[in-house]
């Protein structure tokens, strides 16, 4: 068995900013436990001598010329925002008032 139980899922959901009901937490814990059990065999595939690959095609860092390029206008950037004011994204309080 893997370590995914209801408490672990509740913790992960908080980290991922997804509110979950009790029923969702229970169901997700069961499903994830089965999934993790079935994919944990990757741990036995490679020894310490095998390097990790993060990217399919070897690449080096890419830089562009340091000149002003084409970007979105302020209006375009805000066009899909749920709320904005004074040319900026507007959000609810960052800190809880306690």
């Amino acid at each position, binding site marked *: 068995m893997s370590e995914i139980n209801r408490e672990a899922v509740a913790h992960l*959901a908080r980290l*991922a*900013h997804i509110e979950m009901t009790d029923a969702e937490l229970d169901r997700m814990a069961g499903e994830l436990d089965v999934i993790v059990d079935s994919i944990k065999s990757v741990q036995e*595939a490679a020894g310490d001598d095998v390097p990790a*690959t993060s990217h399919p*095609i070897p690449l080096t860092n890419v830089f562009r010329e340091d000149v002003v390029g084409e970007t979105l206008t302020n209006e375009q950037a805000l066009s*899909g925002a*749920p709320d904005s004011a004074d040319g900026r*994204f507007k959000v*609810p309080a960052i800190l809880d008032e306690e």
Partner: protein
Amino acid sequence: MSELTRHSAARLAEMLAAKDVSSVEVTQAHLDRIAEVDGNVNAFLHVNTEEALAVAADVDKARAAGEELPVLAGVPIAIKDLIVTVGQPTTAGSRILEGWMSPYDATVIKKIRAAKMPMLGKTNLDEFAMGSSTEHSAYGPTRNPWDLGRIPGGSGGGSAAAVAAFEAPLALGTDTGGSIRQPASVTGSVGVKPTYGGVSRYGAIAMASSLDQIGPVSRTVLDSALLHEVIGGHDPHDSTSLTDPVGSLAEAARTGDVRGLRIGVVRELQGEGYDAGVQARFDESLELLRGAGAEIVEVSCPNFRYALGAYYLIMPSEASSNLAKFDGVRYGQRVLPADGPMTIERVMGATRAAGFGDEVKRRIILGTYALSAGYYDAYYGSAQKVRTLVQRDFDAAFAKADVLISPTAPTTAFKLGEKLDDPLAMYLNDVATIPANLAGVPGISVPGGLADGLPVGIQFLAPAREDARLYRAGHVLESLLEEKWGGPLLAQAPDLAAAETMSGAN
């Protein structure tokens, strides 16, 4: 149905160039077909009537004036709704982006516009491309034109169903673990995942950035080659974009010869787990290729058995990071918590709870788990090592063979709902397509015939940057099979207009 919708894109391009037909007529014929059958198929989330007809009229005007036009000018195309478009909504199949209008075009969309191809609309997909059946779309499933009770594959079921139902001659898809090739397989159409970096990803809403690739969807191999030439090439907006020239892919498709080509049968991608009908069609295709002068060799890729596990660690890890941006601040829906303090964190929690479907939540949680302190080395680190082993398997196989061959998917299209409550069973659909994404190599799925009346796909894989080989081998197999069938496989698909009339009568 207008006969115009039965033609391949290559044939339509010829007819348009010869002025046998106008682009407005061709585009209208496809819009009519969409109106006729899409109530049942549900391939389209948005139909772009006005702009498509305006682009078509522009092409006709330019042609009448004797202007030099790109090859596919006036040939319409459908766009997977994961790719951002100015003037049409982009939803990614998710509630969280319902009605969102992108302020910029993806690079491939800029290229489609430059090629003067009318865009018919945006096609359905599993939410954020997460799924193998299109059932995870927030806007209802797409149905398979071969049997409306079955899945069209996923995540690009909408694009595959659109070309298979003659609603569009061409479409764009995206392939992270098989989302172009597996839908092609189960709908009797053609789909190509180019070499990673061969087509710009700029403007494709990212699921797993090191695996995602945009590619062509069509009914013929040549049509995919022609579309690949339009969308391929270097893009400074995508720092993983290759600087290589695209190459003459249509010319490769027209080679018409596999004599001396070494085709490697991957021992691990057949047999157990593959339907008998799928295996039978696969064996027939091998015999045809052998008869045409190809050299069939067996290759072994022992580490492919770890590929699915590695994929379901790497993909959710990258997705959990990529999807963090959907937080109800800069775009998309914002949902306020029902009660309690109204802080940004709680608004994000409520927004993501309401905006994401179950499969997306499952993958975000799984990815967050795989990346969390204490588990990172055991899961994500191990999966990245498997990636190295899969690449080494490919290297060894391509030392013996010019291309590899396998069934595209282990089964034909399953029934809607059949695997919806069993995520693990759903994941197994991608077992033959995932290795290519882990290694970045290109792959194509071409129709291989029917098993119990449902399409089977044959997959070719080539080394990175050797996409041309896919078109060469794919086109030869297509020709050999069509000769045997007496025409394209899709000519045997049921009449959807009749199905529409019947459901209307019920």
